[in-house]
């Protein structure tokens, strides 16, 4: 058992180096047994290949590349987190996979929790591991798809949030603008009425006229706001159903992106070539051992035979003055 004595907490139990004295020291653990060992000991002990854990009484064989930095102070927490990570990477179904059947989903979650619990507490480990592996093998495609989806969901969620935040900000700005405009308009109307009344006779005519002008004046900010509301209603991020973004219009996968000549001017027919030189190389041991391939050589020579055959330099250069 690891000593949780405070004094020994920062000391490598193998080489007894103290973190106080060498502050660069880093502790690593191996998920096989979670015994804490300092980095330089790991280097020393496991560089030559897998070796037994140096803790007394621990017979686990550890590999150097499985060591990792300990994130949590408590190794038990560390271990559980690791197990959870591993299990949930495989059992990564969401409610959608159960078509919204909450009961079935909960049952599934319980099963997963059982697996985590078993692994964490060393109950029936062999069988549980087997269960995990079988599930993984059987559901590989689904697991991968879910991994992708959860990433996309996150992206999607973040994008949507950002979008909505921006829109809300804009809306507030517009509303403030409208408010200010209205205030200014009222003030203007008041003054205008006073002004015009001093020269005109019909007070009602004047008031009606000024009010009409104000109405025309204030509409620009309002129009913008209406526009914005329309956008918010048709938010592209809102059309997403079930949290799943509709897949982009997919373009067929092109392995070579056009970087390949599919209309070669020759057909390779190895059996028809009587090439004494190449044939002699084919029988040489050092050529065979090196991976020499006559078909590659033939293909290469034939490619060079026709590469540029259709380039009529005179004509092609005529169109562009060098």
């Amino acid at each position, binding site marked *: 058992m690891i000593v949780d004595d405070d004094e020994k907490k920062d000391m490598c139990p193998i080489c007894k180096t103290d973190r106080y004295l060498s502050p660069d020291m880093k502790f690593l653990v191996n998920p096989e047994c979670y015994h804490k060992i300092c980095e330089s000991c790991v280097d020393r002990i496991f560089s030559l290949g897998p070796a037994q854990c140096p803790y007394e009484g621990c017979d686990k064989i550890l590999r150097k590349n499985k060591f990792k930095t300990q994130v949590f102070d408590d190794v038990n927490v560390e271990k559980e987190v690791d197990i959870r990570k591993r299990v949930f990477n495989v059992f990564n179904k969401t409610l959608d996979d159960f078509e919204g059947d909450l009961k079935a989903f909960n049952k599934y979650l319980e099963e997963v929790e059982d697996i985590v619990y078993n692994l964490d507490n060393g109950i029936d480990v062999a069988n549980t591991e087997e269960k995990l592996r079988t599930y993984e093998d059987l559901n590989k495609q689904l697991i991968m798809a879910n991994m992708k989806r959860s990433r996309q969901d996150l992206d999607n969620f973040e994008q949507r949030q950002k979008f909505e935040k921006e829109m809300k900000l804009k809306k507030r700005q517009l509303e403030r603008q409208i408010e200010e405009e209205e205030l200014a308009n009222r003030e203007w109307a008041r003054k205008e009425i006073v002004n015009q009344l001093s020269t005109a006779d019909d007070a009602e005519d004047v008031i009606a006229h000024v009010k009409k002008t104000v109405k025309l004046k204030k509409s620009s900010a309002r129009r913008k706001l209406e526009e914005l509301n329309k956008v918010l209603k048709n938010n592209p991020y809102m059309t997403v159903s079930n949290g799943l973004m509709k897949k982009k219009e997919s373009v067929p996968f092109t392995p070579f992106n056009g970087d390949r000549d599919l209309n070669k001017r020759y057909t390779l027919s190895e059996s028809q070539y009587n090439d004494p030189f190449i044939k002699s190389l084919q029988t040489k041991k050092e050529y065979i051992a090196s991976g020499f391939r006559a078909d590659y050589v033939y293909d290469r020579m034939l490619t060079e035979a026709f590469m540029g055959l259709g380039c009529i*330099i005179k004509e092609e250069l005529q169109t562009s003055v060098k």
Partner: protein
Amino acid sequence: MSSSPKPSNDADAKVKAKEQASLRVTDDDLYRHSSQYRVWSFTPEQLTQKRAEINARATAKIEQGLRAFRETHPDLTSEELAAIDEKAVPVSTDEELLLVSYFARMILSFAGKMNLPTEVAATAVSFFRKFYLSNSVSEISPKEVFHTALFFSCKSENYFIGVESFAKKAKTNPNAVLKHEFKLLESLSFTLMNHHPYKALHGFFLDIQSVLAGKVDMNYMGQVYTDCKKIITDALLTDAVYFYSPPQITLAALLIADEALTMRYLQLKFMITEESPTENAQGEKQEPKEGTSIPVPGQKLLEVIKECKAIISNKVAPPKEEAVKVTAKIHYSQNPLTVLDRLKRQRESNSTATTPGQTPVPEENQAKRQKSDGTTD
């Protein structure tokens, strides 16, 4: 000097435009991407112009030197002036070309003596000839670039020989070999890849066997291959390399090696009919054989190959005397004093029967004489 062949070359812009039209990159397009196509392919007019410009640049420099010489030597006799006017003349474009060809041939025989692989020799020739598409023989002597081109080709073709042992084999010194290396690289516009037609020849050797299966004797094919290889090496000394792609040069060489065989192959492969050139228009409409699905307009291809064949066949090796003459001319035009020297010697020996175009005096002695001349003046 700078080279930005990729973005600035018009041919390349065309390639890009083509790519946008259709994403597919065919093997022909791949050749269009190559520096051999982008930087080192010309129309005959372009090439002539390029050489004329270089010659004009060098000529101007030499004429300037000659004028300066006359100005600093006001007491020349009319006989001496006449000798200078006759001997110290800048070389012409044709003479430059002759000298380059002469030395290019020397590279081949030299590489042969050193037992270097065919491709190394071919690349050295290519480097050397390209060097004189941006330099004049009167600016940098072919004698100085000759070894550099070969040494640099060894490195570029992965046939590394240390400069010490190279210099030893070439009977020169390492500094001389390396002196113009940067200049060479720069003159090559930093493009080093060469697609020599030898691999294409190997390919046609295979494809002929498959297209003419059962109709061609294998031993004879071997003979054609060997002959053709030699013809290709000769072709590398011609301007065909700037006007035609490697497959076209190879087919031209095959046509020279065995016209009947090559024509039969071409007929079956590309549906070319030689007997009726009047049917050109119809010929192009014909669909080529299965497996050769990219239509190469057969008749046009044949025309191109025949043009190329004419250029390759026209090749004559410049005789040594001619090369010596040009070398002497370069020497006199750059050192007019040596013309006077020669005149003096001619007078002293009192011989009127000296043949023109005598071998110039080795440079080492020239230098010494120049010095003593200067002091007596």
